[in-house]
């Protein structure tokens, strides 16, 4: 209601324009698939397993009012307000990974020994706006 009171008396057409700014952007921040094989990087001589690896990535615009939709801290909205109202040289919040999965890698070391290792944070599983 408050928004309506504040909003200038406008024709229905402008009203929809007015509300558009609260809609979520078309290409909203979300997780995208990406799959690579270590042979593309010519690393398959020393990385024996896995053959394929899907690190995934986050891409898209962050809606202006992120709230808890992305688990974003309040700071994200503050940064958006700074960007819009005070100083546009301050970047808008970015779409980045928030959670990861580990990855097990089997490699041949330069001395010929073989090592199985489990690495943290190698596959993005969730995105957030920060």
């Amino acid at each position, binding site marked *: 209601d408050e928004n309506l009171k504040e909003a200038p008396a406008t024709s229905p057409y402008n009203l929809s324009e007015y509300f558009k700014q609260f809609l979520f952007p078309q290409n909203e921040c979300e997780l995208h698939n990406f799959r690579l094989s270590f042979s593309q990087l010519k690393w398959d001589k020393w990385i024996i*397993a*896995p053959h394929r690896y899907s690190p995934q990535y986050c891409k898209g615009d962050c809606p202006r009012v992120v709230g808890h939709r992305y*688990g974003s801290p309040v700071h994200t909205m503050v940064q958006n307000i700074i960007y819009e109202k005070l100083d546009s040289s301050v970047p808008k919040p970015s779409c980045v990974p928030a*959670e990861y999965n580990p990855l097990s*890698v089997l490699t041949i070391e*330069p001395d010929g020994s073989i090592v*199985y*290792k489990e690495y943290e944070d190698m596959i993005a599983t969730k995105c957030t706006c920060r």
Partner: protein
Amino acid sequence: PHSRGRVASEKPSGLLVAPEDTSSELNPLLWLPKGMRRGYALLPPLLKVLSDRGHPNWESEVPRLQPDSRALRFMKRLYKMSATKEGIPKDNKSHLYNTVRLFTPCSECKHRHRDLMKGDIHSVDLLFNLDRVTALEHLLKSVLLYSFDTSVPAASSLSCMCHLSVKEHDSSSQVCPSVSHSVAFSLHFEVRKRKWVEIDVTSFLQPLIATNRRNIHMAVNITCLMGDPQHNTELENPVNMALVPPSLLLYLNDTSEQAYHRWNSLRHRRKSPGRPRQRTSPLIAPTGDDGKENSQGKRASRQRR
């Protein structure tokens, strides 16, 4: 990067060096804060690819000794047991390790003698170089891994006597190492489809590996006979096995930042099962109160910690 503190060397990056050459000033690993340099096994190659756009196939130039094919087969089998097809570690409570290293002996002098009564005594002197084990990798279990190329009929049982001694190279006489300590034990197993026998030597090697010993020189005598002492079948006709010199397998817990810590992820999942990881800001504590904890809460959180 404009990070805290000074980076190790202000020199511009450029020249590529092999990951293990930590001496050269240009090694990107030296850009990392001291505490982080050790243990970044996968990082150097990633850094080099990022820092060098010109030579996409630089990796193929890095010489790598080819591993033993049997060792490779064992490690691929271990990988299949430990990770899914996508390479994600299986949540297996029993396996606490996040690193397994397999070393084949860099040199071995075989002594082979037969003593009909005691079967086929197979003894070898083995030297393992453990340079690749980092200071942040803590030993959980060490195993001598024997693979059998044997004509022993399947489903037969073997009883073996194993005598293990570690040789110290004291500074005076580099040539003839003196035996420092030894252990003897018997083991019994069924040779079915099994191609491997793991002899647990953890307690035996623990002191050496804990003191960050880089080279382990040991003599292994193993005698195997057909039969099963438990069912007092006569131990007869020695098995003339073509025993391949054993590999040394180290199950380790890598305590570095970028290694996967099962217990840590389990704890994290319990805390916030579905929400992205976020710091509880003082303004909005998850429980909605303004961040004051009653004494009860304090005690409970202290216990949890």
